[in-house]
């Protein structure tokens, strides 16, 4: 029994253990989904965060108000769960004394964490949370002032996809299959449907499945029955190959359109030839020849042996935004950094030009449409808001 008490006490002490302060270091917290149901997102986020910080420190750190600071990151796991995202955020703020937080990526973690960031007055940038509610205070309906995101929202993406389908692909009859358990994908599918129908198109099938399902043959057979001339798959890239393959097996040959959830380079390997010719909207184009993007992709590849996905790019840009704001801030304080982020205008990130408007945490940036061609992602067009 005594041993048990001692063990509990040791644990408590561990929990209360204090971080040593270094006066020329600034601490940035990262909350990533390292375990749980979207470990790939967490892994990319962690990789990009470590790389972003290394790049800055290799250049001698960051210059704030005439003084050089070394950047230190503390990466916490949210396990993809709301409660752990909240406790990670509080730990970073109260224990590790971070002055800003990057993450969480999944909206289910970003929403509770944003609530904490807002009340603690610590700026938070979520690289990947596309849920509109992340940056909005649900009680007042106003924008939160300390919460930002590096991506555009799914409603915008849904509208862009509908316009692209009708305009560039000349589709009249579209069928949709989406993951109902994902808020993001559901939002994209619904906005697409609404916009597509408003602009004169017909939705011939609107099917769903739940995360974890791997057999889509039933839904595909139903979709095939409506003889669409386009299929929209707002689904995660790990499901896309299965869906496309099953569609092909059923003899479906119409163009396939996807959303940003496709944007992992693994998709190319996973899909084989089946995805050739498909379009999808994305945050960035890894095969871009723009110098900033190319350097990012090459560095990432050199470090981790893979092409960065959109989460990695958005995390990298989140750090970019943060560093940019820090440089402009007078001192390394959360309040100054927040104000500086709000004034970011035309930041040249790997995912495009990012501008924040006063009083909004949602950036203004364009959607990239990519096509899978010759086994790679090819830039197809940019659609501005």
């Amino acid at each position, binding site marked *: 029994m005594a041993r048990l008490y001692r063990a509990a006490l040791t644990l408590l002490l561990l929990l209360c253990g204090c971080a040593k302060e270094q006066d020329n270091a600034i601490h940035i917290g990262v909350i990533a989904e390292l375990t749980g149901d979207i470990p790939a997102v967490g892994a990319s986020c962690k990789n990009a965060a470590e790389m972003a910080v290394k790049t800055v420190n290799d250049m001698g750190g960051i210059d704030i108000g005439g003084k050089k600071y070394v950047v230190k990151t503390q990466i916490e796991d949210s396990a993809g769960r709301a409660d752990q995202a909240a406790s990670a955020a509080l730990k970073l703020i109260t224990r590790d004394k971070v002055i800003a937080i990057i993450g969480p990526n999944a909206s289910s973690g970003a929403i509770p964490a944003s609530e904490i960031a807002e009340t603690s007055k610590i700026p938070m940038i979520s690289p990947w949370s596309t849920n509109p509610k992340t940056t909005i205070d649900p009680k007042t309906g106003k924008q939160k002032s300390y919460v930002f995101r590096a991506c555009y929202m799914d409603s915008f993406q849904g509208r862009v996809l509908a316009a692209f389908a009708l305009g560039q692909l000349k589709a009249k009859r579209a069928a949709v299959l989406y993951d109902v358990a994902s808020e993001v994908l559901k939002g994209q599918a619904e906005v697409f449907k609404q916009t597509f129908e408003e602009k004169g198109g017909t939705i011939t099938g609107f099917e769903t499945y739940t995360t974890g399902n791997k057999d889509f*043959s039933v839904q595909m057979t139903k979709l095939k029955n409506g003889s669409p001339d386009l299929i929209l798959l707002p689904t995660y890239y790990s499901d896309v190959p299965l869906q496309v393959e099953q569609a092909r097996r059923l003899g479906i040959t119409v163009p396939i359109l996807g959303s940003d959830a496709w944007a992992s380079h693994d998709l190319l*390997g*996973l899909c084989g030839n089946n995805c050739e010719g498909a379009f999808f909207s994305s945050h960035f184009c890894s095969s871009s020849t723009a110098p900033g993007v190319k350097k990012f992709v090459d560095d990432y590849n050199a470090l981790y042996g893979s092409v960065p996905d959109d989460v990695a790019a958005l995390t990298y840009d989140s750090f970019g935004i943060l560093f940019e704001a820090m440089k402009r801030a007078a001192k390394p304080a959360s309040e100054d950094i927040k104000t500086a982020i709000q004034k970011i205008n035309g930041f040249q990130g790997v995912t495009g030009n990012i501008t924040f408007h006063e009083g909004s945490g949602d950036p203004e940036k364009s959607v990239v449409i990519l096509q899978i061609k010759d086994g790679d992602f090819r830039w197809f067009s940019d659609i501005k808001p």
Partner: protein
Amino acid sequence: MAYIAQQFLNMLQLGSIYAIIALGYTMVYGVLSLINFAHGDLFMVGAFLCFLASSKLHLPFYIVILAAAAGAAVLGVTVERLAYRPLREAPKVSAIITALGVGVFIENFTLALSPYPRHVPELLHNISYNFNGLTISSIQMIIVALSVLLMAGLDFIVRKTRYGSAMRALSWDMRTLPLMGVPVNAIVALTFAIGAGFGGVAGTMYAMAFPVIDPYMGIMIGWKAFIAAVVGGIGSIRGAMLGGCILGAVETIAAVALPSTYRDFIAFTLLLILLIFRPNGILGVPKTLKV
């Protein structure tokens, strides 16, 4: 018509995969009355072994499937030896919780090593046959045929061989069996080997049909296969096959007839209703009360 036939084929494919995983549950339950909640994760390990064997070692199909089965079987027997055997005399629930813990461990261990989903290369060249709008793929046919073959084989082993009768005897009385000269530990290990091996085969078949695999893939399908085993009558091998097919059918029909959003809802509600009327499952024998 072709539409209905197509959906029927989908149902067969899904059902046979469920059935073959459900078999693993039912075998272990039949012998030890233990719900082996780690079984879904053995299935996942089977799929990952299939991935390793095919994409890293470039082995041919039949060796891949044997390797996956053997690997899963070895893991199954190891887990039994290390985690379940010490608990054979303990309350049954402790063993079940241990199984749950082992499952979570295997998932997260795999995840810590490989957080990204993996793509399994095409093991066999897929040929699609088209009959009047009905598309049949060779992979579908292989999956259904293979699972029917395996189940028939298992049924034969359990019903007609010495080992089979030892397994059946074990499910009745574990304490007196050693007195009859039956090596209980060996038979239990054999049961686990077969059950887990089937999980490995199911993992390979699954990876053939749905070639993207991730460390969490075994959770949902494992729970569902468990439900299939119960619906068929847990402990009954033929019941597991039947249960797998029924679950596959219910899920397919629910998705066909209604918005597929409600697939899980409808499928599980129907299963619950079925259990109200057949509480011991379709082929399950009610446990006789010993007063």
